[in-house]
């Protein structure tokens, strides 16, 4: 290798290093791009597209009552068994009318869910439940901020949630 080649090599090498410094130096003067989370939040447009845990959709005439017909299709479709739907078990003939027993959906004669619980700690947000629902009663919520110290908090009672949301909406509408 001749001396001129060596010098050229050293020159291009040093030049690339200086250019590199220029890139980070320029970044040094530019404003940051970080969203400082607790003080700032990502803009709403971005958040609404987020797929949070599933939630029930209320009937058009009564938003506090879900469209759900307790058929159990979503329970079967779920890959991780995170949905539990309980319905009152129809009393057998001849049995005394005791306290209402709850059993997994579908139950004969019950067209509304008695309890609808999603265990979000198991959910993989695949959306199979919403896809299979015959009455379009399930959709994704858009709440990315789910934090808790207790695993139990991720067992979400969707019926209670629907009622709460309907109430909030009614209050907001007034």
């Amino acid at each position, binding site marked *: 290798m001749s001396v001129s080649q060596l010098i050229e090599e050293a020159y291009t090498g040093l030049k690339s*290093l200086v250019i590199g410094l220029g890139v980070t130096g320029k*970044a*040094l003067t*530019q*404003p*940051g*791009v*970080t969203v400082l989370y607790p003080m700032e939040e990502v803009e709403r447009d971005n958040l609404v597209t987020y797929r949070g845990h599933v939630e029930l959709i209320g009937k058009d005439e009564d938003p506090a009552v879900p469209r759900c017909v307790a058929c159990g299709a979503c329970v079967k479709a779920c890959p991780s068994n995170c949905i539990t739907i309980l319905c009152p078990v129809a009393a057998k003939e001849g049995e005394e009318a005791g306290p209402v027993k709850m059993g997994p959906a579908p139950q004969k004669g019950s067209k509304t869910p008695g309890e609808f619980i999603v265990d979000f700690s198991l959910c993989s947000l695949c959306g199979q439940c919403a896809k299979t629902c015959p009455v379009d009663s399930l959709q994704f919520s858009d709440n990315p901020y789910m934090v808790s110290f207790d695993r139990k908090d991720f067992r979400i009672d969707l019926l209670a949630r629907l009622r709460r949301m309907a109430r909030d909406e009614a209050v907001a509408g007034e």
Partner: protein
Amino acid sequence: MNLEQLLSLDYPLTRLVIGLLCIFAFVGLNGLVLVWVERKVAGHCQLRPGPLHVGPHGLLQPLVDAVKLIGKQLVAPFGSDKALFWLAPLLAFAPVTVCMLPLPWGPDMAMIPMNTGLVLILAFSGLGVLSLILAGWGSNNKWGLLGAARSVAQSVAYEVPLLLSVMAVAITAGSLDLFQISAQQGGWPWQWYGVKNPLAFFIFLVCAVAETNRAPFDLPEAESELTAGFHTEYSGMGFGLFFLAEYANMIIVSGVAAALFLGGWQGPFLPGVWWFLVKIYCILFFIIWLRWTYPRVRFDQLLNLSWKWLTPLALLDLALAVIVAGFGG
């Protein structure tokens, strides 16, 4: 001798004790500030804010980190050589204190003025590598061992061009006293040796980065190769001391560079010590900036750079300096 005499600054022992106290305070404080600067520069280079929440602009973050480090349990790994293992971080700090002594902070500010200050610094800065070897060897860890081996080879390789580049300046100035060398330069950039002899300055800077084990020459602690190199096994304040020693070493090499190449304390308007600090921090900023820009070099490339490029260049520079000094003087 009476108490008055003992408390006078002219008495060497008193001066030494006060000086050491000042050094520890200065190194401790500046170490913290430097950690903050480092993280801030890193943050802004990467388009993020860096530490922000503890204190104004996160200024107290390093302090909190230090408290955390002090609060941590000191763990020595199973099978380690306990004596060497704990000696190493302390030893890492020893050269720092000595090297700080002859730095010229101002025209009449030094812990101990001496006419061979440069020799003292160069001699003791070589001691730092000993602590790395002990740390790597003592911790009974293969990564540590590899890091220690790397640090020795690196230190040996870069000591040579560093010495040669410093010698070029010493010959030009005709002195080994940092005060005299600083005093011979002026307050304006064109009077500095760094401008008069840019090659020596460049070589010194590269070697300084390598000697302080900073990226892109941070091979002894290359975390993506050797997890953390020689300080893999250190926790708590053992790690904290290495960390602090690294920043203290950076301050020293920057101080030497400022004194040798940037006119030391000299500058218009401001008192000397401020100019010296400003120059030190400019060099520190540059070293930090390098770290957040470049990838790490490979070990053989590192040695090649020293032996095949920097050493011949430094020799050439030295010869030139001798000729210029011979004719000009």
